[in-house]
């Protein structure tokens, strides 16, 4: 069978976007008069290349007649045979034939090549045959070739990046994510329009899509709605006052002046330092605990897959998130939050008990949700508290609850700052919610002193092993059984510095000074330090 170059992977791997391709893309925009996704443009380019190939083939067989079984041919006529790689031959004789299955037809003898090889072909064939072309059909239709959309689906990894690269470097095109348009087709958006958009968002006290903004600014009525929308989105993207805070695939504009000042910076307490270790060795008791610790820095591959359809999930708050007023996005909680189209998406957090609503900010790439400081304070949540997330009908609204109890003073493990050092001891603290007994750490009231210790540890980090030994020794001392649970160690370490559970569990499992006592409990033997 003849295989066209455009039907092969190699052709598209070596694709270079040429001037004639760009010209074709210009035509696409001018004819459609609307923004186009990369996929459409790629399919148009593929179609253009296939048509060029078709033209080349046609030109190659000029002077010869394309062989079709239904045709009548005369001796001396030159024919081109599409199913034999477009080989050409000359009709040298013919005879009449009959087959009960097909009826009467003609058999032509065709001579090929220099060695005079003669083969017989059917002509005047009234029976249906796949080589016969109907009205308007082209050769490609008889060859069973893949269509441009099929070619794109097969070779998009080779084709799409090259088209995107070409369009990005060509000043005549403008894009918004995956949508492209010719710059000349953009609607004129002036400073006045932008000021109106700013006011509209301000008055709305929430993000607005381009459609809503267009109601307040007047653009030429004869311009397609899709171009108006694209033009507004494009203009607002270039203006620093505006920020796209929509979920993935939805552009919603908000004002940077109304966002938290440090929205694009990862909170200090959530920054995970480099903790190189060669391999992960876990004690058998430790691996299941990874699922009980809601740490966004844990490799999801080490966790059991969570249910994505759960209507509610409960997590245990750790100190870095309590201090930052954030929630972790882990495999367990991810399904509750929309993914951001840009860096962050604005959502509404709903206090399930009071019905209060307040804005939250999902930084999906960095795996946290910002905006809970006030809610944590109001509910007197401590490190180790249970926080539940509930789905609502609106994917950009997430309900929150904590298991409130009548406030009472309880003895819990707490952290006390003495000078530049921290000490863990049992302290009496007011507790207003249910908590995980293994994770709770009372932080006391001297937040500034704790912050100073954190910053000091960040600037001059103590080796994790040394810190772990120090904390383990203190926690073992205040426990009547002389042991400490691995989750408690994780929670306590994270009051001093940010550290995911994996490096902590690795240290526990690989140093003889940490002695496993079973069920996740460990003791510390100072005489067995490395």
């Amino acid at each position, binding site marked *: 069978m003849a295989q066209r170059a455009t039907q092969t992977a190699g052709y598209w791997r070596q694709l270079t976007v040429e001037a004639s391709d760009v010209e074709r893309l210009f035509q696409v925009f001018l004819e459609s008069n609307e923004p186009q996704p990369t996929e459409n443009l790629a399919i148009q380019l593929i179609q253009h290349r296939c048509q060029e190939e078709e033209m080349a083939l046609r030109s190659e067989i*000029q002077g010869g007649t394309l062989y079709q079984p239904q045709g009548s041919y005369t001796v001396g006529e030159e024919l*081109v045979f599409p*199913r034999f790689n477009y*080989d050409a031959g000359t009709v040298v004789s013919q005879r009449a*034939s009959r*087959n009960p*299955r097909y009826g009467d*037809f003609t058999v032509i003898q065709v001579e090929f*090549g220099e060695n005079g090889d003669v083969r*017989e072909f059917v002509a005047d064939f009234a029976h249906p045959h796949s080589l016969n072309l109907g009205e308007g059909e082209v050769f490609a239709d008889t060859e069973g070739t893949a269509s441009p959309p099929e070619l794109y689906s097969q070779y998009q990894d080779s084709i799409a990046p090259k088209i995107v690269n070409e369009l990005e470097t060509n000043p005549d095109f403008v894009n918004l994510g995956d949508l492209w348009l010719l710059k000349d087709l953009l609607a004129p958006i002036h400073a006045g329009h932008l000021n109106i958009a700013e006011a509209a968002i301000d008055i709305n006290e929430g993000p607005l899509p381009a459609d809503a903004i267009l109601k307040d600014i007047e653009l030429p009525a004869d311009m397609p709605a899709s171009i108006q929308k694209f033009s507004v989105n494009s203009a607002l993207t270039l203006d620093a006052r505006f920020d796209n805070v929509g979920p993935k695939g939805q552009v919603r504009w908000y004002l940077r002046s109304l966002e938290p000042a440090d929205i694009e910076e990862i909170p200090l307490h959530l920054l995970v330092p480099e903790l190189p270790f060669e391999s992960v060795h876990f004690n058998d008791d430790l691996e299941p605990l990874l699922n009980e610790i809601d740490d966004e820095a844990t490799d999801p591959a080490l966790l059991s897959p969570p249910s994505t359809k759960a209507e509610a999930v409960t997590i245990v708050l750790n100190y870095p998130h309590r201090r930052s007023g954030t929630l972790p996005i882990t495999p367990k909680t991810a399904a509750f939050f929309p993914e951001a189209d840009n860096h962050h998406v604005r959502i509404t957090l709903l206090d399930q008990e009071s019905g209060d609503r307040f804005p939250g900010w999902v930084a999906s790439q960095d795996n946290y949700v910002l905006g809970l400081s006030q809610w944590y304070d109001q509910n007197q949540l401590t490190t180790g508290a249970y926080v539940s997330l509930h789905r609502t009908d609106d994917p950009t609204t997430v309900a929150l609850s904590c298991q409130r109890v009548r406030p009472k003073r309880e003895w819990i493990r707490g952290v006390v700052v003495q000078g530049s050092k921290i000490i863990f001891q049992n302290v009496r603290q007011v507790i207003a919610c249910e908590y995980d007994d293994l994770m709770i750490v009372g932080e006391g009231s001297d937040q500034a002193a704790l912050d100073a210790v954190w910053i000091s540890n960040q600037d001059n980090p103590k080796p994790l092993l040394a810190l772990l030994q120090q904390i383990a020794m203190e926690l073992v001392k205040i426990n009547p059984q002389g042991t400490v649970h691995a989750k408690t160690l994780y929670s306590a370490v994270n009051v001093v510095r940010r550290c995911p559970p994996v490096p902590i569990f690795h240290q526990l499992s690989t140093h003889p000074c940490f002695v496993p006592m079973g069920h996740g409990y460990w003791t510390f033997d100072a005489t067995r330090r490395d």
Partner: protein
Amino acid sequence: MAAFIKPTLATKFHIDFDWWQKQARSLRVYLFSHLCATCAARYADSAPHPIDWVDPYTGEVKQVDVLWDVIRDCCSHQDDFTTPQTPLAVAALLTFIANDNMPLTPVELHETISIARSPEIILRTLGGRQVYYGIRPVRTSLTRKRRVS
């Protein structure tokens, strides 16, 4: 010597009648051996009867015995035309006869010849240097050189 191009799962195969001619083997004998009982009795004493057969893919005309159409029209519809005991190459030959020698890939053949465990096994059987019953990859060119216009 013809160049050997390694076939793949996407390569179309068919019965190459030229192979039978070059090997001086009688396709009619094979066709006769696969007639159903009724047709075998009917054509037992018949003389060879070549007819012009039209390749449904290329339009090429080949002379085959009338038994080709007999098998295609009658015997191939019998339940015992191929059985789980039919060797793979024979089953492939019969499949091509039944579908009038329309080219098929090993994957397409596998959908028809359920006895073969996988398309890869069909490819390994038909795609080697040993040619069974003239089943070969479809030829792409009739001449060594492309036409010079």
